[in-house]
């Protein structure tokens, strides 16, 4: 270890991203000046990434309660929701944006690894993953390198770990150039009794370290994630890039779940951002205890690591486990069975302090609860950005209506943000664990929870479950739907409406699949909060998210904030990604988006065009962007009451067995939605199943054809039923207060679409080709 530690100067403090006031507060907490290692610890613990110091006041506005919530937001590494029959799910989304900008493959792998650890830390078995991605435009070779690196990284980690990656989203927009967004989601399953806490309970209990040796990986990664991303910062990033090892993670996960079943564990936490520092501090703070560790006992990969380096290293796949005293042998037996490196590194104390020794010296002595709970909180200034005036003033007067609707449709279908994402999800194993019922490619993924999804049970729990199960009674299988959504363009153009729209679209996707929301997790991908105009974006979008989560009874169980996202040309579009998980009552209610049978009736639920919107749903639309090169205009309004009525009505109709397919209208409007309904069913490699349709919209009052075909008016769903049920569905929907109209019939090999002012017809094959192959075509471009 290096013996000479740098003197603490104002410059060094500033380099650690601590303000003079924050530093003074640290001195007050300690009652003296910090050591170099302690300075590092304050720096990471009080970074945005770990402390949410800029966003905490906003996060408090999210709804976080419901009768189903077993572990709420902020309590632990992930929230937990009851799904009935003593079963529960833990899920969360997290970002790895800056590391992915530096090294796309490893940035993505370690993002996936981190979120999987957050889930099994709770005692849950991880059973599916999802992701939300943003990149610049694919015409740039650098963007293609980032995109393919990130997708390969996600694939590598998830596939090897053995978790199906079942859903996600990808958008391409210039604002993300150089600052891609990589948000990873994971969901796990457990019994209520298996919930594990990340608390360091039990004075005298030993503390175990398990996982690979600590190296100089991602030193100060949490602090790095809390700065503006500049070329210089990427270069300067101290320490080595973190490399993910999914093989190790799989072993650590299995060993930890096996260990939990022994009952020997008092508390457990993964070493994520800020590694050993964050895990020890938080565990002690949660339990109100102290913790003492000996760094000489920590397995080390590199020679001569300093205490600063060991404490701040972000080497991956490591866990901290507090074990009931006297049960050490069981821990050793299980870790050895899995050939995992482990070490006993410390003990729980009653001092309330986190004490670290290294080379015979005490290098850290900090009151754990104070550093964890007394982190600074900032109420940042918010000012409406100037650009919004122009956005709101935008009118369609100068924009000609569509003249070639079929050409426009094909351009939209080939637009990378709308085109099929098969090039992406084909690289992910989305079927491992034999539970994926609806694969990627429909509105929401659906997975089946069966008995082997659960972690190993303790003998005692197994006996209890057995005694409560009638002989011959089958395991109560569950069906979960999940989706990730956010239209960043809408949020940029109106953060509040855009925030609402993100949650609403996610819930609409669930409704189309037959599911009722259980809860949500969000990832606020935002720019620099110190700039009032950018903070305003954060604040307003959170207001929208919170209101919508309330409206749909989807409490937020946790999430992540990634601030300081920007590229050299400016901030990213504010992107509050939302993942919502829902429950489907019975397997027969599982619904997919593609048309099913010839002769079925096509019904539009919702208003074809919002006539109260001066832009008729075209503000911020894909059509304006693709056909006119305009990214402006107020985005479509999101009426939460109307949306809620639509969702409950649709799920009710599905539960009555009336609906054969349902697909929500989002980017590209009704024409894109209908096209997707005719062509998105994939039977097998090279074998799509087409189902044409004839749709007549000429009943609609005179309006722009582009608004009718490509407008993105919210709260609309295209559903089908047998021709016999058509009128019944329309009546029942109207009775519930949902506008409904029969608009056509399924059949043939063409999509024919008629409005008052236009008519076109195209073979489904002709539409499928540009849509299905667009991403592959972009990615196969050679060189520059």
């Amino acid at each position, binding site marked *: 270890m290096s013996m000479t530690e740098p003197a603490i100067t104002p410059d060094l403090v500033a380099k650690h991203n601590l303000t003079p006031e924050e530093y003074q507060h640290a001195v007050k907490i300690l009652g003296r000046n910090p050591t170099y290692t302690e300075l590092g610890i304050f720096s990471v613990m009080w970074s945005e990434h770990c402390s949410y110091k800029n966003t905490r006041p906003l996060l408090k506005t999210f709804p976080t309660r419901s009768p189903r919530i077993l572990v709420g937001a902020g309590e632990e590494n992930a929230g937990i929701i009851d799904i009935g029959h003593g079963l529960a799910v833990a899920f969360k989304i997290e970002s790895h944006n800056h590391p992915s900008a530096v090294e796309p493959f490893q940035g993505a792998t370690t993002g996936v690894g981190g979120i999987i650890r957050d889930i099994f830390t709770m005692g849950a078995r991880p059973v599916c993953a999802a992701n939300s991605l943003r990149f610049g435009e694919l015409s740039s070779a650098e963007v293609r390198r980032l995109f393919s690196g990130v997708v390969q990284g996600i*694939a590598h980690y998830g*596939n*090897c*770990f*053995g978790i199906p990656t079942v859903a996600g989203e990808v958008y391409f927009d210039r604002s993300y150039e150089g600052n891609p967004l990589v948000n990873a989601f994971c969901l796990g399953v457990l019994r209520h009794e298996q919930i594990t806490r990340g608390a360091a309970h039990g004075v005298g209990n030993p503390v175990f370290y398990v996982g690979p040796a600590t190296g100089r990986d991602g030193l100060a990664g949490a602090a790095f994630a809390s700065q503006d991303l500049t070329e210089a910062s990427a270069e300067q990033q101290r320490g080595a890039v973190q490399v993910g*090892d*999914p*093989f*190790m993670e*799989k*072993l650590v996960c299995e060993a930890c779940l096996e260990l939990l079943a022994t009952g020997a564990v008092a508390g457990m936490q993964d070493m994520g951002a800020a590694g050993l520092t964050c895990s020890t501090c938080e565990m002690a703070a949660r339990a109100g205890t102290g913790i003492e560790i000996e760094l000489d006992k920590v397995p080390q990969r590199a020679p001569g690591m300093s205490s600063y380096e060991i404490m701040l290293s972000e080497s991956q796949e490591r866990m901290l486990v507090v074990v009931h005293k006297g049960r050490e042998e069981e821990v050793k037996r299980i870790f050895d069975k*899995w*050939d995992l490196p482990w070490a006993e590194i410390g003990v729980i104390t009653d001092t309330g302090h986190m004490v670290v020794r290294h080379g015979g010296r005490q290098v850290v002595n900090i009151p754990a609860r104070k550093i964890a709970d007394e982190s600074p909180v900032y109420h940042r200034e918010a000012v409406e950005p100037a650009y919004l005036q122009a956005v709101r003033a935008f009118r369609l007067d100068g924009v000609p209506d569509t003249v070639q609707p079929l050409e426009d449709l094909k351009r939209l279908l080939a637009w990378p943000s709308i085109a099929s994402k098969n090039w992406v*999800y*084909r*690289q*992910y*194993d*989305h*079927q*491992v*664990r*034999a539970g*994926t*019922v609806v*694969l990627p490619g429909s509105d929401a993924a659906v997975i*089946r929870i*069966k008995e*082997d999804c659960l972690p190993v049970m303790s003998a005692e729990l197994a006996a209890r479950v057995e005694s409560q199960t009638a002989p011959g009674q089958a395991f109560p299988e569950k069906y979960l739907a999940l989706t990730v959504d956010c239209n960043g363009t809408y949020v940029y153009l109106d953060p509040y409406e855009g925030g609402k729209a993100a949650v609403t679209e996610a819930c609409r996707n669930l409704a189309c699949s037959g599911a009722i929301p259980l809860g949500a997790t969000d990832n606020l991908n935002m720019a620099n909060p110190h700039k009032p105009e950018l903070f305003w974006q954060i604040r307003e979008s959170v207001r929208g998210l919170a209101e919508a989560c309330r409206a749909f009874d989807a409490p937020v169980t946790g999430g992540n904030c990634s601030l300081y996202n920007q590229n050299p040309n400016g901030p990213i579009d504010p992107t509050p990604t939302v993942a919502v998980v829902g429950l489907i009552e019975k*397997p027969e209610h599982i619904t997919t988006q593609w048309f099913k049978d010839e002769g079925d009736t096509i019904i539009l639920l919702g208003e074809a065009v919002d006539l109260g919107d001066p832009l008729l749903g075209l503000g911020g639309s894909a059509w304006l962007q693709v056909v006119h090169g305009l990214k402006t205009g107020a985005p479509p309004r999101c009426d939460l009451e109307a949306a809620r009525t639509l969702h409950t009505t649709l799920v009710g109709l599905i539960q009555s067995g009336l609906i054969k397919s349902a697909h929500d209208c989002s980017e590209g409007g009704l024409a894109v939605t209908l096209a997707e309904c005719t062509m998105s069913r*994939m*039977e*097998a*490699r*090279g*074998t799509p199943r087409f189902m044409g349709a004839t749709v007549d919209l000429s009943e609609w009052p005179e309006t722009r054809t582009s608004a009718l075909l490509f407008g993105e008016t919210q709260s609309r769903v295209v559903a089908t039923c047998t021709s016999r049920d058509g009128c019944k569905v329309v009546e029942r929907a109207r009775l519930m207060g949902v506008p409904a109209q029969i608009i056509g019939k399924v059949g043939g090999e063409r999509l024919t679409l008629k409005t008052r002012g236009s008519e076109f017809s195209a073979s489904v094959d002709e539409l499928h080709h540009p849509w299905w192959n667009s991403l592959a075509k972009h990615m196969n471009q050679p060189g520059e």
Partner: protein
Amino acid sequence: MNFSVLQFPASNCDQDAVHAIRRLGHHARLVWHKDNLPAGTDAVIVPGGFSYGDYLRCGAIARFSPVMQSVRQFADKGGWVLGICNGFQVLTEAGLLPGALVRNRDLQFHCEQVYLKTAAADTPFTRRIPADKPLRIPIAHGEGCYYADEATLAELRANGQVLWQYCDSEGNVTDQANPNGALHNIAGICNKGRNVAGLMPHPERACEALLGSEDGKWIFESLFEAGRERPAAGTP
């Protein structure tokens, strides 16, 4: 029938194989890589996954596991062994099946449904598969491109050891239907003794209507039928 499903570090389709076999009404248990095959084993499944992270080469490290010694003895005595995906790779690395599996020709991992033509019906792995029925079964692999030298390929064909080939929905073996560049569209083969087989697709993921296909069950049904006719030959 009693199936032993091997469990290497980072096997991850082991539970899926157990689930499929049990659902079809037979017994399956997991066998840890440091153990031997349990007595009473009628057939062995070497499951899919990423044994040892697939580091170095897929299946290269797993083949040295203690359990593989006992699988080799079991196979030598005529016991039935089926390798799925990573299991197929392990069996070729172990020399229990000829050839090798290399990187997919487009260098990408492929997870998708494919059709399989059954090229030989006279094996315990294929006997129950309805004639002329292309099986719809998913694949999920990055290194599934079957390779063997000319002499080996000629021998495989002469002996009818090619069991499955990638085909289209009509059963035509075309280049378009080949997801990974495998020679002769080979998706699965057996050894000369016809008691050891491997395939890249995942039949255990295609045994339930809920999951979109039940075609995979024919492969297991074949083994069940073989098992009914003959008591286990390879029980150690």
